[in-house]
């Protein structure tokens, strides 16, 4: 799978344009604040229909514009697919093969794995960030996960409402049982995912860091694992305490997963550099897992990673990346920071304008695409 062409109009600070990408490495060079991350966000938006940083869709639209659109031509198994994700009158719209469709029909042609400097917070940040990361990663390989997450959230909101408004024991038990169905499916999907991910994760971490303590990944459920009945029983046992709290205290929405270095918790003991390496190893493992289990090679988006790693880890990262068969889009403030293969396609990003840099070894000339 690779993006052959991507175009945008009215998106963030980017000037309307379409660029042709290489199926391997693509480097976007530019100073800070010129639009490099916006460009990666455009790819991310096209793939996931979610903004990367914005909390409201409106923020994706270029100042002074009323709509925005990102279009892409994706090559998958030798066939070209066309995707378009736009915001029209504040509403998200998606088109596949030039026809409007539901999000469920949209996904599947383009999968991305993204690494930004912000991701380093995953190790030490709040559990909610790790849960969201995990559910998103599970969703890439298992689209039905989204329906389970939504059903669980709805059932959870219903139970929380009941905690405040009802003393009917039979009613509580019914909603606890209804909550257990999606909860069980969520828990199984998350646990299976982490179990499959672990060997790839260990490999990738060793690849980046050399011989450091083996890293670990463990799911930390707030409810004892069990069948649906067992989950419902635990909620019943918590009912009085939950009523005092005013919300459901335990369940997949309160779970976490921990990263470890050897026997020690990474959250407590990992250095900045180790945290970066852990998160990067997670992302690389995510890709390897998609390849191994689903035959899917996602597009890797790397936002200014070199600035985050020391020289040695940086060199190892690029060694790893050279072994990656898929497409890579990488941003950097200076092209010499990234050790890409000679065939890499280079672009320059300046004040929202993206232009191709000709790969001539002598005088680099600029080609306006």
């Amino acid at each position, binding site marked *: 799978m690779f993006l052959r062409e991507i175009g945008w109009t009215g998106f963030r600070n980017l000037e309307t344009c379409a660029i042709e990408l290489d199926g391997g490495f693509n480097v976007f060079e530019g100073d800070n604040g010129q639009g490099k991350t916006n460009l990666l966000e455009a790819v991310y938006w096209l793939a996931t229909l979610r903004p990367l940083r914005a909390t409201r869709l409106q923020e994706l639209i270029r100042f002074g514009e009323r709509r925005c659109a990102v279009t892409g031509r994706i090559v998958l198994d030798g066939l070209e697919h066309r995707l378009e994700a736009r915001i029209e009158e504040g509403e998200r719209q998606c088109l596949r093969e030039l026809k409007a469709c539901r999000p469920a029909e949209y996904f599947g042609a383009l999968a991305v794995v993204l690494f930004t400097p912000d991701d380093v917070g995953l190790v030490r940040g709040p559990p909610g960030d790790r849960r969201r990361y995990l559910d998103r990663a599970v969703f890439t390989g298992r689209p*039905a996960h*989204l329906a389970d997450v939504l*059903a669980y959230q709805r059932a959870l909101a219903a139970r929380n409402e*009941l905690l405040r408004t009802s003393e*009917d024991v039979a009613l509580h038990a019914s909603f606890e*049982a*209804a909550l257990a169905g999606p909860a069980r499916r969520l828990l199984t999907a998350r646990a299976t995912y982490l179990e499959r991910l672990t060997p790839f994760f260990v490999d990738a971490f060793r690849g980046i860091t050399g011989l450091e303590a083996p890293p670990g990944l463990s799911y930390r459920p707030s409810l004892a694992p069990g069948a649906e009945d067992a989950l419902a029983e635990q909620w019943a046992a918590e009912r009085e305490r939950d009523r005092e709290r005013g919300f459901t205290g335990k369940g997949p929405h309160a779970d976490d997963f921990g990263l470890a270095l050897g026997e020690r918790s990474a959250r407590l003991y990992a250095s900045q550099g180790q945290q970066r390496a852990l998160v990067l190893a997670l992302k690389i493992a995510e890709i390897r897992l998609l390849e191994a289990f689903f035959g899917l090679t996602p597009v890797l988006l790397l936002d200014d990673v070199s600035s985050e790693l020391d020289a040695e880890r940086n060199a190892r990262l690029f060694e790893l990346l050279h072994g990656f068969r898929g497409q890579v889009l990488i941003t950097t403030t200076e092209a010499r920071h990234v050790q890409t293969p000679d065939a890499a396609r280079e672009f320059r990003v300046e004040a929202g304008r993206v232009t191709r840099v000709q790969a001539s070894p002598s005088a680099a000339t600029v080609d306006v695409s």
Partner: protein
Amino acid sequence: MASATDPIRRLVLAFSRLPGIGEKTATRLTFFVLNGPPEVARELSAALADVRERVRFCSVCCNLTEADPCRFCADPRRDDRLVCVVESVPSLLAIERTGEFRGRYHVLHGVISPLDGVGPEQLRLKELVARVALGVDEVIVATNPSVEGEATALYIQRLMRPLGVRMTRIASGVSVGSDLEYADQATLGRALSARREM
């Protein structure tokens, strides 16, 4: 500004309160009624008044009907020992169209939904318990496979427990006659995990 009793604005407002109708459509409907032949308006208003006047709940199954009991409850060829519980009249009609079911119905008129402020007391559950207590062999719960539909089914199961009646729940999965490739991932995933021995 026109007064609140301006008849045009009043009708636009009335139409726009209907589900699926926004202000634009409401305006279009209003001017259709206004510009069309007078019979259209007369027939519409008579039908609207009539439907509230003459339709009521069936005293047995709570279906909406003009005659009481409704045609499903009055039909002597149907099996009294089998009751299918549905959320709404459209659900009842959908099951009826299959031609597969020859028992009786019970219409709840909703599902328990704490988020919408709907509790068990707002549904026709007391009527169901009273009916089943009189002697029924099996209760089929055919509420939708939504969170609220499932919870309502489980609640009914609890209500029925003291009565010792056989309880069944309709299956959910891939729809017959459609290709697997068109089923959405959630449905297909559920159908796979609920597969049966053969």
